[in-house]
């Protein structure tokens, strides 16, 4: 299984998200996360998927099937490029006064922020690439996670690419 980050530029028409996720379901691809939002151009949205695919052939098939959709303008597998990936997670951690300062000491190096607080629970917001978010969650888990929500990853290709990325033979 390969984990791939795929971005698509789509025309922001009603049903386009449904069309794309329906396609992934029909062709039996597993989505780990999906994010959608507007871009700098009006009427154009960008989707970022993190998917697990079996092999190169399945991946090529996925990219081609996405490309085939009329509302999809561009498809890119950016996994092998130099990219920046960000995800946001909101986590409610059990924090009775006795351990509160201990938890805050974990929060600090992750540059996470406390955005809400009650008697025994603090709500933390953490952003970063999914691995960092994962690491943070692992660290606070022992204190007890009451509730958690994650946005899924969104990604950009870096302006400066060090190595040329592999081209797929789509023609």
């Amino acid at each position: 299984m390969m984990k791939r980050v795929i971005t698509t530029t789509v025309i922001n028409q009603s049903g386009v998200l449904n069309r794309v996720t329906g396609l992934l379901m029909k062709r039996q691809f597993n989505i780990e996360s999906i994010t959608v939002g507007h871009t700098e151009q009006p009427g154009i949205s960008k989707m970022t998927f993190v998917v697990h695919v079996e092999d190169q052939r399945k991946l090529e098939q996925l990219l081609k099937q996405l490309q085939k959709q009329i509302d999809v303008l561009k498809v890119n597998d950016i996994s092998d490029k130099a990219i920046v990936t960000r995800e946001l997670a909101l986590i409610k951690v059990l924090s009775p006064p006795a351990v509160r300062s201990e938890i805050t000491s974990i929060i600090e190096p992750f540059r996470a922020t406390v955005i809400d607080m009650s008697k025994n629970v603090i709500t933390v917001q953490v952003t970063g690439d999914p691995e960092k978010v994962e690491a943070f969650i692992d660290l606070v888990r022992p204190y007890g996670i009451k509730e958690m929500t994650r946005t899924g990853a969104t990604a950009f290709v870096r302006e400066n690419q060090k190595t040329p990325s592999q081209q797929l033979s789509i023609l």
Partner: protein
Amino acid sequence: MSVQVNAKQAEALGGDVQKQAVQGADIFIQSLQNEGVEMIFGYPGGAVLPIYDALYKNPIPHILARHEQGAIHAAEGYARVSGKTGVVIATSGPGATNLVTGIADAMMDSLPLVVFTGQVASAVIGTDAFQEADIVGITQPITKHNYQVKDVNDLPRIIHEAFHIASTGRPGPVLVDIPKNVSNEVFTMAEVKQTEVNLPGYQPTTTPNFLQIQKVAQAIQKAEKPLVLAGAGVLHAKASEELTAFIEQTGIPVTNTLLGLGTIHGEHEQFLGMAGMHGTYAANMAICECDLLINFGARFDDRLTGNLEHFAPNAQVIHIDIDPAEIGKNVPTDIPIVADAKEALQALLKLGIKSDGIEKWTNHLNSMKEEYPLHYKKEEEGILPQEAIELLHKHTGGDAIVTTDVGQHQMWAAQYYKFNHPDHWVTSGGLGTMGFGFPAAIGAQLAKPKETVIAIIGDGGFQMTLQELSLLQESQIPVKVVILNNQCLGMVRQWQQTFYQERYSQSLMPSQPDFVKLAEAYDLEGYKVTSLDEADEIFEKAMNSNKPVLIDCRVKQIENVYPMVAPGKGLHEMLGVK
């Protein structure tokens, strides 16, 4: 554009005059006329009343099927033989859902259709209103694209785009869902402008990459055992002449997929017959043994390839397809070419390639063709289904348009009816739809009124859409309905015999209507034939008649389609070869 509307004037005058103003439904008809639509296959209902009213005032020939499924299969038959886009109208809810099988069928077999469905009024969409169904959601995975019209002023653009998408690139069905209020709404634009299609996300590649074409030429020159596989893409591209020229120029032997039949003359000396699950021995062995496989417009369907591990194990694979997503989907490809089959063939023809030193290969294939032809064991009494097809071929000289459903009769028709021309074979290949053949024959006959059209169907499939006999009665459409009646679901029974130790679970249908009386009930000529002599006589009479005829041709019940590649097996593991 001829529709001129002075919307402001209409608005200012209000009341009765506004009723005179051009409404969505009028724009709809106007747009269809602009697209050159010759006929519509449809069925009215509540949500399309405004459209049918506009049709009443400004008629385009309309074929009133007796079930929406009949309408859409007829449109598929029309599209397949004419190369034009089939147009279907149905109402919301059940009208729309009755089209689903046909839409899926057209998607699988790449048939250009534009399907219009009525929808409940915008204000009540999403409230489970009377006859509401989310047809855009339902058909999203089985259409090339679909739309719901939200503003009447978008209607002309959407219709134009729908026709463009359906008929270009890899053809397919496009659905346009029109809420009732949209067809009633007054069109406020000054006129219907046919603008250029602006679809930045849809730019099909039709011209082959020349470097890739040169690679094909080199591969052909190197190959000792080349083989051409031609699929329906060649037909959609109207390239059978080019294909024939190409194989004659190069000398390469050729085989067909089920849907590709007719791309090459059925009796051409380089033609090995159909390949695949019920393909000929020569064709399947050619695929197993070839060292170069050139695929023009076939999608390497599992019924063709058998077990992929054993498919063309020694071959370098060239795949020419207009749909990039088909290339490499099932079979790894060495030389991929995204192009229209006609343009690719023309580019190859220009290079004047000859395949030298392949006599040993072609001789080998020819001897297999001679030694292991399609065969069946003749019997003294009764009619064998294969004999019936051969008789039909005899009486039509291979010139007829033949339509089928799915199953044994389909395979026998594919094996024994040798087509002289392209676009004369209309069958449900990908989806394998029972009930397809008869309505498809009606559409085919309407597209080609002068040709002989035979619907070769089974007794099971015919009973799924036989209500369309009304159409034959009504318009005297001279379709020849030949029921290969074995009183069972032949292919299901064959598999139960072969793989389930003859446990014929729900596949025998001893009780059925008297098909001759049924024909008479519709005021049509009907015959029952039980012997070869009778069949010979009635077939001759029917094929020379300019009227619709129904023939209940009783054939042997326990008869199997051979040769056969069992599911999961490779093409080299054929049963019933000799």
